[in-house]
């Protein structure tokens, strides 16, 4: 078959494609926020606030979409959106008589649906309804703490699943180095009963405690809501196994001539090649050389051309 190599003609597009290519170490997932065919005011507020909380890495669609992820062939458009926007988590809000204030959290692997959790929202309180010192408002895209409270998160399968999804949704960028001064937010989740989770977002105040570790104080800044588990779909075992694969850790090259000692720390051996001191040209006319000339004069026979030759040599 005849083939042709096609490469983007613009560097910007090439860079964008490279960003989307699979990576050995992933640093975070983008979130897609979607509205179903019908949404309530509560849902609109929730979706916009989730978008706000994840402002750096979320894409929000404000048009209505007829998507029913739990039904057969309901994933196609989701998968399409996932490819288009390069998002691997989605949040879909929909409102119906049967399932009022419905939120579906889902994740994709390789742009195919991986798992789904459906929750109903109750007792929603928006950020605006909380009164607190505005200085405490968390910064955009700061790394959050998580606190999960309750036995349910381990014993009940749905809650265990929800915990995982919530953690993945809100954890933000995966980092290795972190600034301790930038810690300012916590997501607290409590399993109230076997199908109900109380979720709230708090700001954190670091207070002096006399030790290195500051004393933490939580101030509720919202949004806060109750999540009532409805339907959920776990990933296939085979898919899960594949998705959990981690990049093999890069085998470190053995560093030559460096040893580590418990007492002395890092020790290095240095080999210096022959310096060839005799043949190295001198940077400036050293006084020592002049003395040599003087000595030659002292001897008396110092004829001038010979002297010059010597000078040239020394240069």
């Amino acid at each position, binding site marked *: 078959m005849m083939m042709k*190599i096609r490469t983007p003609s613009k560097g910007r597009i090439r860079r964008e494609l490279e960003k989307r290519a699979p990576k050995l170490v992933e640093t975070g997932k983008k979130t897609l926020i979607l509205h179903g065919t019908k949404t309530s005011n509560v849902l609109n507020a929730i979706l916009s606030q989730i978008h706000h909380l994840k402002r750096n890495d979320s894409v929000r669609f404000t048009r209505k979409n007829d998507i029913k992820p739990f039904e057969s062939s309901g994933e196609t458009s989701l998968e399409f959106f996932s490819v288009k926007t390069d998002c691997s988590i989605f949040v879909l809000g929909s409102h119906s008589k049967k399932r009022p204030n419905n939120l579906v959290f889902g994740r994709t692997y390789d742009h195919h649906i991986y798992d789904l959790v459906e929750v109903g929202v109750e007792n929603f309180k928006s950020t605006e309804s909380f009164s607190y010192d505005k200085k405490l408002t968390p910064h955009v895209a700061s790394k959050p703490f998580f606190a999960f*409270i309750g036995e349910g998160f381990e014993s009940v399968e749905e809650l265990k699943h929800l915990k995982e999804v919530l953690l993945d949704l809100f954890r933000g960028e995966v980092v290795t180095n972190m600034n301790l001064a930038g810690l300012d937010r916590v997501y607290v989740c409590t399993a109230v009963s076997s199908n109900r989770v109380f979720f709230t977002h708090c700001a954190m105040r670091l207070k002096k405690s006399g030790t290195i570790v500051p004393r933490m104080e939580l101030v509720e800044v919202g949004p806060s809501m109750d999540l009532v588990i409805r339907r959920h779909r776990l990933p296939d075992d085979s898919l899960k196994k594949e998705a959990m694969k981690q990049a093999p850790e890069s085998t470190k090259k053995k560093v030559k001539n460096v040893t580590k000692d418990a007492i002395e720390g890092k020790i290095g051996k240095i080999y210096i090649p022959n310096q060839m001191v005799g043949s190295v040209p001198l940077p400036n006319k050293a006084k020592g050389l002049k003395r040599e000339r003087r000595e030659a004069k002292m001897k008396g026979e110092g004829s001038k051309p010979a002297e010059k030759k010597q000078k040239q040599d020394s240069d």
Partner: protein
Amino acid sequence: MTEYEIDLGNLMAFDSHHNFASPPSSREELVKATLEHGTKLVQAVADALFDLPSTEDLDGPIVQLPHQQQQNCPEQSLYGYLWTTKTLFICSQLPKPKPPTRWELFAQKKGIQKRKKDKIVFDEQTGTWKRRHGYDRVNDDKDVPIIEAKMDEDPGEDPFAKRQKEKKNRVEKQEKNRLKNLKQAAKVGALPSHVQLAATALPITGTQAAPRKVSKDELQNVAGMAANATASGGKFDKKLPGEKPPKHDKKYRKFLPVVEGSGMGSLEKQQTDKVLNKLMSKNSHEILNVEKAINMYKVKEEKKRRNQKGNQSSNGSKLKTNKKSFKKTPKKGSPPPQVKGNQNEISLLLFLILS
């Protein structure tokens, strides 16, 4: 101290032992209990976090979080279980290693090693430093003005053209090799992210030329034509949803009525008038001497006014108009000299046209 599960990679703490003895009666109580317990958990994370070795920076102490893979298994520590969840999966397949190219295989077999080359090389022909590749490069064929003929060469052949052709062939060959290697990579699924391999021909027909992209309109047109290709001109055919009648891009030819009359009948006259007008207006600047026409008009006006003056006594308003005409006279100036010679002819032409 109760034991919590702490995940430092995600700054997460989980208390799996907590259980509400009695469900909190009111919402405020629940919130209060949650915040209280949450603070404890957060404190536990902070204890572990601030315990890590940190380096001071301008913005604050910077801590290196434990590597995700280093702590897969739970590890007993001072603060309970210290571990990192492996439950969070990756969002796309791991990138696959690129298979070696033909050259790389060959080089490995022969023990040829890559070595760095300078970007800039000394050019002996010109005695300057030049780039190794690209525009204005070292040993460029274009820099050679004379090629010495060899004995065994065909005298009719242009050596420059020959050299150009050879180079072109070499480039084409390399492109072919590149495609071969990329195909091999695509088989494994290790194609570079920015490269696409596109089919240029159908596998069955094997046509050489790349298929032209057909636009939506063209497709619609063809579909419409195909639908109309029945004995009845597609009149009784069922229309598909969204199907439109075929578009007629060209103009329909229109014929004017042969017999003259009013309305439609006078169209032909109008048409010819239009053409004539257009032709004349195009050349009107040569025919019409504006300067002279204005002069004539002014003279006429003057005459009229004089006649009126004879009839009527002078008015205040008249004075004003007089002033105006007075002001305008210096502005007029003398007509441009080059037109002067033609004036007689022009006025004659003007007369002809107006009549």
